[in-house]
């Protein structure tokens, strides 16, 4: 009896099938709907409509604003934590890291509900600061995604480089700015990607924290529930393009920067 032998490339078949069914096919459907109107004819009206309405552009800006603010806040909170954790000689490093990551183990709606109650206690009336509340909620939700990649890059950082910098007369600030920071850029970039993109569409946080303004995710939902597949698909597509451009940019920047900074240190 001959043994059935798998070729390595055959192992890709399930993944390929998955890609076609759940990525490619839906994408084609979205593109079809985005560029057609109710009668099924080709049209650019949806595209033009999106960029000519102050409301949809405003929603894009608002989503962007939330995403940028969340990413910046996460970065500013996460970097010192990751740095201290990675560089220090604490005995129970992993335990402390776990404390920061542990909230991820709890269901996120539950966490936001708890946060809602705490914020109400602090602020009294949540309706006065919808943007701030959203920012707090999003930061709470996404902080671990920023800490982990930065922590990992900093942990892998070669200690001899720092010693060399010190030997050559750099003080702590200089060492940090010229050695540690440039070398941790890849971690920062992947942190940014992991926080920025989801925070542009995560409208559940807004809903739960009583922010009734639409962001991109809820806008798509609003069009779909009004049976308007065409405009909804167009917005989904625009979001996709934005994400694509963003990812390409960050990738390129990460490669370039990692290369140049390494060259700088070693050369």
């Amino acid at each position: 009896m001959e043994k059935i032998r798998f070729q390595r490339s055959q192992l890709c078949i399930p993944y390929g099938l998955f890609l076609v069914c759940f990525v490619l096919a839906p994408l084609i459907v979205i593109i079809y709907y985005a560029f057609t109107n109710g009668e099924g004819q080709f049209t650019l009206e949806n595209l033009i409509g999106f960029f000519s309405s102050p409301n949809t552009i405003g929603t894009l800006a608002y989503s962007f604003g939330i995403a940028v603010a969340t990413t910046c806040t996460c970065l500013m909170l996460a970097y010192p934590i990751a740095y201290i954790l990675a560089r220090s000689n604490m005995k129970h490093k992993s335990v402390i890291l776990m404390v920061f990551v542990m909230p991820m183990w709890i269901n996120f709606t539950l966490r936001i509900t708890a946060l809602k109650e705490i914020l109400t206690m602090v602020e009294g009336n949540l309706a006065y600061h919808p943007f701030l509340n959203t920012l707090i909620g999003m930061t709470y939700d996404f902080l671990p995604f920023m800490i982990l990649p930065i922590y990992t890059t900093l942990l892998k950082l070669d200690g001899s480089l720092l010693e060399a910098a010190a030997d050559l007369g750099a003080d702590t600030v200089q060492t940090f700015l010229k050695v540690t920071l440039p070398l941790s850029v890849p971690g920062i970039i992947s942190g940014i990607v992991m926080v920025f993109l989801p925070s542009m569409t995560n409208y559940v946080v807004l809903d739960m924290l009583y922010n009734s303004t639409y962001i991109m995710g809820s806008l798509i939902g609003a069009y779909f529930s009004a049976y308007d597949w065409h405009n909804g698909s167009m917005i989904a597509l625009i979001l996709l393009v934005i994400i694509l451009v963003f990812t390409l940019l960050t990738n390129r920047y990460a490669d370039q920067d990692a290369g140049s900074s390494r060259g700088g240190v070693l050369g």
Partner: protein
Amino acid sequence: MAKIGNSRALAVLSAFAVCSFLSGTVYAREEPIILRVCSWEEYIDLGEWDEEEAIALDNGTVIFGERPLYEEFEDWYRETYGREVRVEYSCFGTNEDLYNQLNMGDTYDLVCPSEYMIMKLMAEDRLLPYSDSFYDTDNANNFYINNVSPFIQETLESNEIGGESWSKYAAGYMWGITGVLYNPELVTEEEASTWEIFGNPKFHRQITLKDNVRDSYFAALGILKADELTDENFIHSVDYHDKLADVMNDVSPETIEQAQELLDELMGNVYSLETDSGKADMITGKIVANYQWSGDAVYAMDQADEDDFELRFAVPKESTNLWFDGWVMLKSGIDDNADRQHAAEAFVNFVSRTDNAVRNMYYIGYTSSIAGNKEDDTIYEYMNWCYGADEEEEDIMEYPVGYFFSGDNSDENYILQSTGSQMGRQLYSQYPPQDVMERTAIMRYFDEDANKAINQMWINVRCFDIADVPTVVWMALLAGLLVLVWMGYRRSKRR
């Protein structure tokens, strides 16, 4: 140990095999009818009541939910008509979801959408009319036509789509009105009895609107047309109801535009928009008033009572939205299958049996369209069980509900002896008095253009206007851009 486990598993397996073999032989004679029912979530009694939950009514009937109603229907159908039926019961989240599901090819035989979706489905010729035998009052098993409230039946008969009255296609299930749930310590009844409360600066950021376009648009119309709606001449005109319905269904472009402006303004005053969280927020005191459906208002008041906290329900003086959900049969599902249609109609009849209607009301908290009849006063007795006053109690109030039970509000058989404290409370919300019912208007389904306009209006209200970006942000952006350009410049220079 492992061996015992194995043999036990084997025993269970073989038991299953025997069972399925036996049942197979029983059913083999006749294929069971498959009835695909789709309704709102938590919208039918699922049984499994605790012993002490049993409701003993004064007329001797004891109501007890043992198993889900749709399962009990299977037994009842077998006993009554001698045929097997199997109900495949599923749920939908919103009317729009249901509509989208139908368009994407899901087939159901019997669904329970709200009035405007029924109108839409009717207009699209997707519904099957009930058979003549369904309306035969001589058949004792026709619980629906024998028990439906004359008020509901008249409403269904008097509303038409394309020249055909709704009553041919729809059987009422639950109904209610909309109003304002409020905290009487901080809000007076007068303040709550108008849609204008949502723009009242006194409750700035302490009141919630509903997160759906139809309800919010209704409130906006109530404010925009307040002068006309509360005008004595208008109220006492002969064709008041028709006029009222027209006003509350005004979707002219000018009105939609005005509504958008108004809703924009209201958004600056309300706490938030909600669909579900409002009840809890009322009880925890985050907000002092909220737009509420009567059924949910009853639920919230019950919950608050448990915490010794009083909430009340007011119906705006301008007008209130009469809504109902009804059972309709879909052509695509029934597909000219007489057996299936019979089972679907029997299902509607079964849930319209008075004891089952009580079970549903008890479980869901909404008001059933079923009223009973002269011989069967179970529904009225249930109301008495819920809200009737003991004889020795002071503050006894006569509360006529004849309009619902017999069509005549002065009917002495249907004047409930309740306590005065029930005014503006659960009884008032569940069976509003006739003067409130006078100012109800049904919100129709809007044609495609109007629907599109009104949805777009709502999206505009909800979206962030680019013009609202504060100057500081623009300046910060500009500064950031300049820094980036400068950095890029320095970098290129260094190379």
